[in-house]
């Protein structure tokens, strides 16, 4: 066979003096890097993805994973990945796949936005001493309500409110299907969502019965493959999401290979074992905005009017599309920026289609306000939220809530190695191999994810306190409290943010 001309990215090395031959590395590596050579561990470094599972489980710290110093000749134009992909394509004729969000060095607007703080003219508030409210309700709001004072002097609501989903803080989990991630990973999300009073989302993989106890914290998704969709499924959660697109792969469908469809996954998806699960690029009953409206109302009819979310990838014309979605009757518009993660996508798509979420939030929030319909739907923003600061900035730009996925997976061991599509995840997250998924103990890892959410909760409260406000709704869309650093005038104009110093 012709030798692979792409040099390995990483060099897995074992210090033979430190190594005690315990073979834990062999056991832990899902990629088959290590094997037993009779007297020592053998290394096939070309399989290494630097997920660091072996490193963490080596009791002697004998393992080091280093970036391969042997690279192609440095070239400011022909990057390592350009050359590498061409070589791979020359060998296979295929489309190189990837996982996670794009790692290319496009400008990160979040890192060019800074948040305000109080000094003298308005006092900052100490969240450890004063109440600080993050509670958020997702869903359509009326533009006004009618409240009457009864004979007993008590207030009574005369307006019928549309259904609202209460979340204790404006950070929810993005959709990740059973199939793309393991059931244990989904359980971690569900347990943490319940404990933190937020939401997880089934993605397009049906709903495994083990998740039913968490149904009050679950959004079920309907996507182009319609996997697992039946009346019970639609009614199982607190809302239904129609997935039109995903930030990491706007405009294209999904392909879960048959190898990742064992019996349990097949049951949840209602497809035969071992068949490829193909999600078409469009939903074939939605070729236009009026078709979307019909599906939204069909789902509402089927669920006795639960809130319906519509998830779209942030693309160039996102503002007009979102406006159409709101007018079509959606209660929530879920915007997924191009940095958003994926279990599998062609890298050419992931890295070159769509727009960053920061622009999308600003454009959509502006458009809905210009049209006087901002109250008609909540905006959930996702696609590269790395910290509570990103969340605060997204909310200040106009989002009601952010959604996170990569950050949640990182608490389960993920190191963003980007090889989710292989099904070999050594951390038991993006795999269905039983020996790998078994190592992800839902209770242990749920605690870590709960810790993360609580930490962000504290941080958001500190940010609000510094801003001198004590309710999240006073940050939402409050771009006056953001300043741009090093952004050009037009970008600032689109974001509706002043430059620092003004």
């Amino acid at each position, binding site marked *: 066979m012709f030798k692979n001309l792409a040099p390995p990215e990483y060099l897995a090395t074992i210090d033979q003096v430190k190594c005690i031959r315990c073979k834990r590395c062999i056991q832990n590596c899902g990629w088959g890097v290590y094997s037993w050579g009779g007297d020592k561990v053998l290394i096939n470094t070309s399989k290494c993805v630097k997920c660091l599972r072996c490193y963490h489980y080596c009791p002697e710290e004998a393992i080091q994973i280093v970036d391969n110093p042997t690279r192609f000749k440095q070239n400011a134009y022909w990057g390592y990945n350009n050359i590498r992909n061409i070589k791979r394509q020359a060998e296979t004729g295929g489309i190189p796949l990837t996982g996670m969000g794009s790692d290319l060095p496009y400008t990160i607007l979040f890192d060019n936005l800074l948040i305000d703080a109080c000094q003298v003219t308005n006092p900052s508030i100490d969240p450890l001493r004063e109440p600080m*409210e993050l*509670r958020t309700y997702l869903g359509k709001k009326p*533009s006004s309500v009618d409240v009457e004072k009864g004979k007993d002097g008590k207030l*009574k*609501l005369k307006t019928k409110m549309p259904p609202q989903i209460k979340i204790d803080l404006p950070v929810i989990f993005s959709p990740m299907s059973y199939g793309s991630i393991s059931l244990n990973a989904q359980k971690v999300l569900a347990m943490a969502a319940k404990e933190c009073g937020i939401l997880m989302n089934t993605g397009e993989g049906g709903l495994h019965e083990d998740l039913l106890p968490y149904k009050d914290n679950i959004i079920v998704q309907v996507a182009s493959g319609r996997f697992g969709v039946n009346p019970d499924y639609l009614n199982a959660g607190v809302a239904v999401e129609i997935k039109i697109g995903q930030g990491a792969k706007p405009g294209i469908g999904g392909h879960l290979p048959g190898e990742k469809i064992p019996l349990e996954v097949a049951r949840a998806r209602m497809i035969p074992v071992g068949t490829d699960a193909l999600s078409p690029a469009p939903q074939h009953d939605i070729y236009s905005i009026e078709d979307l409206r019909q599906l939204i109302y069909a789902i509402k009819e089927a669920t006795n009017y639960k809130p319906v979310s519509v998830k779209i990838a942030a693309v160039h014309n996102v503002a007009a599309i979102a406006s159409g979605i709101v007018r079509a009757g959606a209660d929530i518009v879920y915007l997924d920026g191009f940095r958003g993660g994926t279990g599998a996508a062609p890298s050419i798509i992931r890295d070159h289609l769509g727009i960053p979420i920061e622009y999308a939030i600003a454009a959509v929030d502006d458009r809905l306000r210009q049209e006087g319909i901002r109250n008609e739907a909540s905006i959930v923003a996702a696609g590269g939220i790395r910290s509570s600061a990103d969340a605060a900035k997204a909310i200040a730009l106009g989002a009601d809530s952010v959604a996170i996925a990569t950050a949640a997976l990182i608490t389960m061991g993920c190191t963003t190695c980007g090889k989710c599509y292989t099904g070999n995840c050594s951390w038991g997250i993006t795999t269905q191999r039983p020996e790998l998924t078994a190592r992800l103990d839902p209770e242990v890892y749920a605690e870590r994810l709960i810790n993360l959410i609580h930490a962000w909760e504290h941080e958001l409260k500190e940010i609000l306190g510094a801003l001198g406000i004590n*309710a999240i709704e*006073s940050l939402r869309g409050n771009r*006056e409290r953001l300043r741009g650093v090093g952004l050009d005038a037009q970008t600032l104009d689109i974001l*509706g943010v002043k430059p620092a110093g003004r």
Partner: protein
Amino acid sequence: MDHNYQKDISGCGLTGLISKKKRRLSGAEIVKSLCLMNDRGNGLGAGYAAYGIYPDFKDFYAFHIMFDEPSVRWTVEEYLKANYHIEKIEEIPTFPVKAISISPLLVRYFVKPLKERLVGEVQEADFVVNSVMKVNSEIEGAYIFSSGKNMGAFKGVGNPCDIAEFFRIEDYEGYIWTAHTRFPTNTPGWWGGAHPFTLLDWSIVHNGEISSYGINKRYLEMYGYKLTLLTDTEVAAYMLDLLIRRHGLSIPTACLALAAPFWKKIDDRDKDEREALTALRQTYGSALLNGPFSILFGHSKGLVGINDRIKLRPLVAAIKDDITYMASEESAIRAICPNPDTVWAPRAGEPVIVDLD
């Protein structure tokens, strides 16, 4: 929606009073009360608002307009003539004061919208609001700073006593008075930037900084308000107009939206109240005024005082006979009412609502 505005920040002192029996009181009282709080301002703005001052023209909207240049006056008058019946035009009487060397041209108009201009279902009040927005945002150098019936605002750059003397506040008689002295930290004095801020018969004096300004402004813009002043006070005034006049909320209910109770308190109420308060917060989240403030807002039928949710700015109230007083400092009340029947500090977020008998 231009985001490149420069927001106006200021600290302040405020005072107000209302006679429930609608007795008309001389402006001298309120001037005395405000001047006691001289050190809460820095001489860059003071003003007064009074209700019941134009009994002879009580059916007409009294437009108080300031013109930076006399030439702008004709542009505005042309617009007014095309849309309003003008009952009377006069320059607002002013008197020379040593400390006030420059002032804009100040003119008042008693007007009524022309019937034929009220097309379709346009309400008279909406028509007037639109006119105010139009003149203030589109005609450079002209500013309508008072537009209610049988009420008026008088304000400018100067100390409380100087502004009072300039307008001869003591010559007016009203049954509700509010007054304000200002401590702007970043603006050169502009006469329009002083309080009270008014729209129709709403008048607002405000002490504080509304830290939620950015979203409050964008929320109001969605309903067609044009925020030209870039002050927190303007936001408060338009918010009241939206909630009370346009959305039909009662004043106490509107206060529950502007200084919403904490969720913890809402959750503790019984079912009906919980539902109502929850719906109010869900719907009016962007109307929540967050940050330190105390506000007095007057209207033709009463006076309301309200604090932010955790009372970060002072507000004291007192009652003597038919008069209720509210001010930043108790001393400002005692300066004109040495022995009130009761004095109290209203709790955070709990409005003091006084209606005329």
